[in-house]
């Protein structure tokens, strides 16, 4: 049973099994040059300022060294000359459902992925047709004056709003990969919520699924105007059919005074993917930004969602779950920059390392001296599933001045053999016992995810555990 599930996951994740002849109408080719940038800008028919923005970003990307002085040397294995930086929307090649390996189909079955989505995820369809589901939502949103479009449309149709905030929370030169994204981005969402509007249903990247949106270099910008509220969800628990090995997104959030933004991510990458993502929000007075994040799979994930608390009483929160299985490295954490009085931040991070899997927590909490009444709470817990698993914690909390309250707790625990024996004695298989333990470990965080995600998450953990037990 476990061997079978294991191979399902593995076959599913090896790109070799997914190879097919490629033909694209718009294809920037491999490698990254000035021409690549022009190509993208031309295809998108972009304004001059954005073309320049891209070119400047390319320079910054070239100048910036790999951050291997603090991050893993594995980054040096990314071959930027072999990457395809742009394939146009709807032009991804397809293959028939019959060609999709049975194991992949079974995984979809067990995760309960809806029929139409399966075809998209397996690379059978370039576009996930969700217009029917989306049109109702769209209508409701339009009535409220909410803008929810992809970034290309956002640039074209709302240039003033877009330009005002674009690249302001995460400047191009923030890091090498934010520079890369700034140079070649395509896809991603642009959302604007007008003052006082509370969007009742979560907005899902889902509704806008297409090849480009699920691309490697998506760029998302969400602006919640004064007193508004919005929740955004991206990703899905199904292992994604992956043709590219580098995913490098940039997500910027702006919460104006009294606004609330929740950004929920559940991602399950194939184990050949470098997932290097920059996510940051700016919270103005009394605004709240919450990142709720679950990372499973990938060869290397580096992701430290952040909140800059710019206005008085602003609040920032990062809740994250990371699962590193054999051969995977989850390097995740949070960045909390307190830049006003009485700002509050909360970080709760749980990581699970299975087999040779490796989890790293990196936190940065910055409270400068001149501020008053700031609070931070940081909890990071690691669970190790067997003796080979690795976990490291680098919590950097710089608090200056004595008018603040900070609290930091960290723990490393193991699923003990005796605990597994106890559960087996009650009739649970080793895999069932493992997933129950792991689910127990992340239980309080899983509750923070929307219902449909939490159910999928549980199933996903079951699958991951089945694959990991000999």
């Amino acid at each position, binding site marked *: 049973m476990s061997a079978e599930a294991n191979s399902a996951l593995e076959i599913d994740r090896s790109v070799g099994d997914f190879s097919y002849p490629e033909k694209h109408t718009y294809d920037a080719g491999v490698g990254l040059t000035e021409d690549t940038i022009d190509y993208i800008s031309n295809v998108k028919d972009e304004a001059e300022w954005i073309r320049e923005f891209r070119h400047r970003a390319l320079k910054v990307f070239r100048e910036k060294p790999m951050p291997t002085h603090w991050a893993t040397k594995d980054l040096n294995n990314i071959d930027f000359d072999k990457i395809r930086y742009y394939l146009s929307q709807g032009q991804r090649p397809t293959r028939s459902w019959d060609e999709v390996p049975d194991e992949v189909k079974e995984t979809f079955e067990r995760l309960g992925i809806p029929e139409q989505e399966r075809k998209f995820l397996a690379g059978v369809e370039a576009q996930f047709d969700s217009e029917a589901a989306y049109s109702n939502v769209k209508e409701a949103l339009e009535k409220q004056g909410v803008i929810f479009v992809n970034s290309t449309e956002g640039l074209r149709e709302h240039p003033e709003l877009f330009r005002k905030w674009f690249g302001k929370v995460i400047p191009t030169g923030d890091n090498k990969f934010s520079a890369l994204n700034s140079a070649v981005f395509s896809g991603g969402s642009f959302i604007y919520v007008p003052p006082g509007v509370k969007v009742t249903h979560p907005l899902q990247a889902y509704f806008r699924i297409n090849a480009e949106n699920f691309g490697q270099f998506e760029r998302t910008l969400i602006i919640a105007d004064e007193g508004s509220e919005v929740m955004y969800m991206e990703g899905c628990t199904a292992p994604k059919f992956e043709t590219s090995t580098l995913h490098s997104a940039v997500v910027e959030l702006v919460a104006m005074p009294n606004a609330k933004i929740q950004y929920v991510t559940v991602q399950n990458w194939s184990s050949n993917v470098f997932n290097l993502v920059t996510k940051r929000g700016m919270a103005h007075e009394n605004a709240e930004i919450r990142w709720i994040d679950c990372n499973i799979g990938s060869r290397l994930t580096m992701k430290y969602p952040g909140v800059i608390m710019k206005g008085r009483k602003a609040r920032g929160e990062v809740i994250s779950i990371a699962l590193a299985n054999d051969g995977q490295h989850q390097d995740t954490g949070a960045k909390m920059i307190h830049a006003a009085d009485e700002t509050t931040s909360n970080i709760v991070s749980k990581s699970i390392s299975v087999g040779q899997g490796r989890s790293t927590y990196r936190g940065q909490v910055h409270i400068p001296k001149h501020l008053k009444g700031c609070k931070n709470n940081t909890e990071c817990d690691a669970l190790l599933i067997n003796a080979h698993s690795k976990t490291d914690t680098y919590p950097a909390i710089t608090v200056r001045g004595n008018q603040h309250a900070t609290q930091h707790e960290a723990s490393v625990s193991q699923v003990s053999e005796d*605990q597994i024996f*106890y559960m087996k004695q009650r*009739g649970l298989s080793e895999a069932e016992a493992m997933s129950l333990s792991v*689910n127990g470990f992340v*239980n309080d965080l899983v509750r923070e995810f929307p219902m449909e995600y939490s159910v999928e998450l549980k199933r996903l953990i079951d699958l991951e555990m089945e694959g990991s037990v000999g």
Partner: protein
Amino acid sequence: MQCLRSRKRGHPIITDFLNQPTPDDLNPTTMSIDIRDLKVSIDGQEIIKGLNLTLPKGEVHAIMGPNGSGKSTLAKVLAGHEDYEVTGGSITMDGEDLLEKEADERSRDGLFLAFQYPHEIPGVTNANFIRAALQARLPKGEELDAVAFYKEMYAQMDALEMDRKFTGRSVNEGFSGGEKKRNEILQMAMLKPTYAVLDETDSGLDIDALKIVSKGVNAMRSPERGFLVITHYQRLLDYIVPDHVHVMKDGKIIRSGDKTLALELEERGYDWLNDAA
């Protein structure tokens, strides 16, 4: 977090499989746990040194014996703990070789161990744990009826005078010693095993709890079920009256008798017994 949907609504699965028909046509003499000349080592050190014991269905056997004589070791070997190495002998359950089965299979086949030191499972609620254990006993694709499950569990908790709040608490986490023991009996009552080994379930229980737990065990006594009760105290045996009492010392059963043996032990201790007996 578990979804409460049941694919076969109104199908009382729990009570269904609990009363599974027993294969009466089998030779009745094999309706027992049979331990023959069992030898067990841990880290190369022999702890059980040629032990013989037969526990037939319908009977209650008590095992008493000094600290470190190997009683819990026996219980864990029965349950299938992998740290212990069986170096000789055999164990069968209803005629089937128990030793070649994994711990979880033994459990699903009807063997239950109430642990001397029950483990904690952080983040997993009691209700979800017991549910998962019952679910594991169902054929693939069949789902436990959630309504029937809660009904049954509440009834059992009432009988054991356990507060309902224990359903939502993490398994054994932060439970008092006595609460843990009572929780073991709740699990036994829910899983309805054919053979139950109770390892010092009485230690840690206050006098009232002892009576309640004993009542719970007695309610489960039946011709279809065997109990192996490990204890240090005659008092428990006043409530759960055994059919046989065995004395274990240095890895062997050195004396067997009826319930009066326990009284004698209470009075005289273990020293008067010698290994030759």
